[in-house]
Structure formats: structure tokens, C-alpha cells
């Protein structure tokens, strides 16, 4: 009996070539993608610097940071601008060297320099702290010792300068602040893709679609009618998750409730529209589920939510930018933790809006009024 059931299941599976393709292709594509893309070592992390000293010594530090390829340095005007650059997301790290740096070095007075790190990205924050060592290794500091003829010999020379690291926006490096904002997006993605992913394909499987197709409804009214209820449900879910986060998990308040609502609205619309598109592409509910998972898994891993975007090789980076969740992560961290200005988030908002237009447009094209 069991044998007969197994045989029947295998026959049914074989008769669904798209599902078989998904089962075979999905792991291969994802494995290849993740094998190439998932790295913990960031490259070319944008670092804003102010070098008031402009000396041989300060150049040594900058060269040390730049030469390993971890940091991509660019100059800004003053110390506050470093923080604003990081807040805006244009830089992930910053370096400030005071104007008396070389004077103090030559006096062996151990000057301080300041290293700023964006504290909103879990693995990137840690990696940046680690790689800042390249500013203080022997290659850099070797030439910074000045002997005083009168001084006593010491066994261990003190560091010629001290680098103070300042974790911006999340000074205590709270894990909930790292992850919770993105988790909201993951949950909404799951709810929206799976709720809407089966909505049309279920009508097709249950044969209710055929009966619907003879009515005078337009494509647009079908799509909007299908989208609206799920948009509202997902929006309610979005705020429900936020409220639980605020009440129980120390989630910070946003810089602007209006912008947060705008994000909720646009992101939910993207996900619901994508779900609808999945539903229109799929022939069975099973296929829809698989495609949804096919989208959710790389979204989580390639969006900068867990692994830093800066660690993803340039060849794969376009995939990250083709993932709506990438922009969500950028905006929600900006709103909840960094308090980024709207103007600096506008590109990400526009990207999400673009996804809505593309997905709704494709859905309307795909939804032929004929079976």
C-alpha cells in the first residue's frame, strides 16, 4: 500500500515539470549564488574622513586603512559631516584626525584619532571594528616612534597614537536594534507573498476563475480587487509587529511616523504586488509556494539584512539591488535607528515605488482575460 502511494506521488510529481524544474533549479541557483555572494569580509566600505593634520603621519594612517581594500576613503569638510554622511548612508565608517596630530606624535604625546562606525548593521559593524586595526598595525606605526635622548629605555613601547572607536546610532550594539527592524520586513514579506501568492492560482485550481472570466470585469478591477484586502491585512500586520517590538523588545521610535507609514504602505504594496505576480505565473498552489520561497531566501541573505552588502562581490551586487527588501532594510534602519533625513532615503523610497509599478504592470499584462 505504501509502495503504491509513493509511486503515485512520484508520478504526479513527474507530471508537473515546472515544479520539478523548481525543485532542481532552485537549490542549484541558490547554492551557486550564496557560495559566490555570501562573504563576511567587506570590501571598499565607504569611509568619510577629515584630516586636519594633512601630514606624512596622517597619510600613513589613511593609506593603512585604504591599502587592504577594506575601506574606500573620501574626504569631507568637518567632523559633523562625517556623522551626517554615515547617517545618510553614503558612508558606513568615518575617520577624524585632529590638526595637532603630527605635533603630538613627534612629542610622543600619544594623540587620539577617532574612528566612526555605523552601528546599525550587525556583521558590518563588527567587521569594520576589526579592520580598523589596519590603521594601527606595525606597518603604519613603525615610523611614528621618536626617541628622546634623555628618556629611559622601555621594554614595551606604548602605542604612538590611540584610535577611539565610536559606534554611531547604536552605541551599546544592541542585537534587537540590529535585527528587529529587518525582521519586520521579513515577516511582512512572508505573509504577503504567501497570502497573495495563492490567491489567483487557487481560483484557477478551484475553477472559479473561468466563471469569473465571463463577467464584464476589467483587468484593472480584478487586480485592484485582489490586492486591496491583502494590502490592508499586511498593513495591520506591519503595525501589529511594530507595536509588539515597541512594547516588548526595546524597538526604537522612528524619526517620523509619517515616513514610517509611507514605508509600510509602499513596502506592503510591493510585496502584495509581487505575490500577485507569483500567483499569475504559477499553475498550481505548490508552484506558487516554491517561487515565494525562491524569492524570500535570497532576499534575506542578499539584502544587507544579515550579511553586509559591501561583502557581496560586484558581480552579484546587482542581484542585491534587484531585491526590494534591500531598500526596505535601508529605510527602516534609517528611520528607526539612524534618524536619516528623508532626502537621503528618497532614492530607496523611489526604488520601492518603482517595484510597485513594475510588479503591478507585469501582473496586468500577465493576467490575460483568457485562461
Amino acid at each position: 500500500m505504501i509502495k503504491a502511494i509513493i509511486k503515485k506521488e512520484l508520478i504526479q510529481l513527474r507530471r508537473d515539470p515546472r515544479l520539478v524544474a523548481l525543485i532542481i533549479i532552485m537549490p542549484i541557483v541558490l547554492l551557486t549564488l550564496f557560495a559566490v555572494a555570501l562573504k563576511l569580509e567587506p570590501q571598499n566600505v565607504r569611509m568619510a574622513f577629515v584630516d586636519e593634520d594633512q601630514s606624512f603621519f596622517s597619510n600613513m594612517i589613511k593609506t593603512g586603512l585604504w591599502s587592504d581594500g577594506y575601506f574606500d576613503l573620501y574626504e569631507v569638510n568637518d567632523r559633523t559631516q562625517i556623522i551626517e554622511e554615515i547617517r545618510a548612508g553614503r558612508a558606513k565608517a568615518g575617520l577624524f584626525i585632529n590638526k595637532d596630530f603630527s605635533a603630538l606624535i613627534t612629542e610622543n604625546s600619544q594623540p587620539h584619532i577617532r574612528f566612526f562606525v555605523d552601528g546599525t548593521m550587525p556583521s558590518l559593524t563588527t567587521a569594520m571594528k576589526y579592520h580598523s586595526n589596519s590603521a594601527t598595525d606595525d606597518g603604519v606605526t613603525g615610523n611614528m616612534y621618536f626617541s628622546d635622548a634623555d628618556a629611559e629605555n622601555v621594554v614595551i613601547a606604548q602605542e604612538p597614537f590611540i584610535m577611539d572607536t565610536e559606534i554611531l546610532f547604536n552605541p551599546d550594539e544592541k542585537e534587537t536594534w540590529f535585527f528587529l527592524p529587518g525582521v519586520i520586513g521579513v515577516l511582512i514579506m512572508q505573509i504577503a507573498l504567501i497570502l497573495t501568492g495563492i490567491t489567483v492560482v487557487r481560483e484557477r485550481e478551484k475553477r472559479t476563475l473561468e466563471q469569473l472570466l465571463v463577467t464584464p470585469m476589467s483587468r484593472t478591477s480584478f487586480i485592484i480587487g485582489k490586492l486591496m484586502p491583502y494590502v490592508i491585512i499586511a498593513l495591520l500586520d506591519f503595525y501589529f509587529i511594530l507595536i509588539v517590538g515597541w512594547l516588548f523588545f526595546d524597538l526604537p521610535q522612528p524619526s517620523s511616523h509619517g515616513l514610517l507609514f509611507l514605508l509600510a504602505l509602499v513596502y506592503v504594496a510591493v510585496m502584495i504586488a509581487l505575490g500577485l505576480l507569483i500567483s499569475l505565473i504559477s499553475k498550481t498552489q505548490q508552484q506558487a509556494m516554491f517561487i515565494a520561497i525562491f524569492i524570500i531566501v535570497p532576499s534575506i541573505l542578499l539584502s544587507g539584512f544579515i550579511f553586509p552588502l559591501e561583502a557581496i562581490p560586484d558581480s552579484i551586487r546587482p542581484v542585491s539591488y534587484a531585491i526590494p527588501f534591500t531598500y526596505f532594510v535601508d529605510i527602516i534602519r534609517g528611520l528607526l535607528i539612524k534618524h536619516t533625513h528623508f532626502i537621503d532615503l528618497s532614492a530607496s523610497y523611489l526604488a520601492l515605488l518603482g517595484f510597485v509599478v513594475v510588479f503591478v504592470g507585469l501582473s496586468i499584462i500577465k493576467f490575460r482575460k483568457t485562461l
Partner: protein
Amino acid sequence: MINAHHLSKRFKKLLAVNDVSLSIGKGQIFGLLGPNAAGKTTVIRLLCGIIEADEGDVLINDLNTADAKPIFGYVAQYFGQYEGLTVWENLEFYAQMYGIDDHERLNYLLQRYNLSQFKDLLAGTLSGGYKRRLALACALAHDPLVLFLDEPTAGIDPVTRKLLWDDFYQLSAEGKTLFVTTHYMEEAQRCHQLAFISSGSIVANGTPDEITQALGGNRVYTTMLPYQPKVQEALLNIKGMILVNQFGSELRMVVKPNVDKNHLEHIIFAITENNCKLEETKANLEDAFIVLTQDSSSPEFETTT
């Protein structure tokens, strides 16, 4: 009311509908009769605009299908209403899809199809017969001029079937045009106009009487003789034999005019040693149906349509 010109539809290699033209007048009950997989459902879907024809066009009340949607209703072969909605919710939904909010009409439809008592039941819990009534009520919610019914009584008990047909006549009397697909002979008899479809092509078209005359000069003989495999085999081997059909203890044959009645009797006698008398009779619809839907490339097949 319904005019289809040279409709063709191909699914990959299969030519499902081949150059089908139909003209159906107002108030008619038109039956499309054909064996399974002959293309009945494809034709009805083409007429309703659910699928697009590769060639040909359809006019319903002089409108193309897309514009005609508000004036026709469609009942699919399979239950296409929402099982998770109640009877009333289904009815209300389909009415609203046509912009109708006339509760009086919907209640009238519930009564007409004996559904009032099930108004608040989930559609999925209804029996097959009542599901069919609900589908019909939903298709009539917007009071269409034309109703397309794809095998409306398949799998329905004879009593309900009769009730449904009484209703079809009433709808026809109300001036509605009905397009019905079926493979039930008795249903075909009830239609005002009929077309036989076989392998995607219309092989005969007319009133039931006209169709039975489609056998032309071919003759139909009958006799009371219980089923005997050897008799069947021997008869089928006769040159000019078109159809051998057993109805209980009645044996019917359709033969070409040149086949001699005595010769047939002789063959039967040789096997059964019974002196049976063959009587010539009029072809019925089933004779015509089977003959006309047999492989039309068969050398034995000739019609005068």
C-alpha cells in the same frame, strides 16, 4: 442572436475546433451534441470569450464577445462558484460583478431554483443537483439574454434533470437564447436546433428531425434479438454495414442502400438458427449520432448533409 463564423482553435498539435460556423436565433434552445473530447467545451469557451479563437469571430446580439458580456451568462461544466461562500453570498457576488444590486431579483432566483432554504449554507455543502441550480441562479442574476450551459445536467438525477429542462423551456419562452452542450441523446431531442460535433468539426446541423434524415438513403433495420457476439461480428464484416447497435434485446443496424435485407436475415439465421424478421424503421437520433460521429474517414461512412 449567436453567430459564429469559421471558428478554429488549435492547442499545440491538436486542432480542437475546426472551422465551426453556427447561427442561432433568438429564443432557441440550441444543443451542441458530441462525444467526449469532440470539442464541445472548447466551442462554448470560444463563444463566451474565455479563450481566444485562432481564426473566426463570434457575434452575440451583433456585439463582439467582450462587449456582449453583460448580456450573456455562462454555467461551466464544473461547479465554478465559491464553495467557501454561502448560497446568498455567491448569488450576491455574481450579481455585483454585473453591477446588479436587486435583492428582489436574487430572492426570486432563490425561490425559482428552490434554494431559499439553503440561503445561508456554504455552497460547498450543497448536493450536486443544488450546486447546479446555484450555478444557474448565479448565471441568471443579471437577467441575460443568452445563456451558455456546458453539460448542465451531467451527473444529475433524472428527476432534477427534468426539472432543469422544464426551466430551460421556460427561459426559452421568456425569450432567452440557450446554448447547451450535451452528450445525452434524450436531451438532444429536447433542443429546437442541434449540431453534431465530432473531432472538432460540425458534422450535422439542423432540427432533430433534419439530423436523423442526415443518414440519407442508408437504411435502418431492427429486430428483437438478444446480444450475441458472433452475430455482431458477422454483421460488422458485411460490406456496406455502417452501424450495429444493441439496445437490450433489440438489435439495430444501419446499412448502405445496396445491402440486401434477406442477406442480413440469412447471416443471422446461419448463426442463431432462428428465423428472425428484420423490419425497416426510421433512424433515431442515436443512430445518427453514432454514425455521424464515427471516424469520418471510414470508407463505410457517407452522409447527405
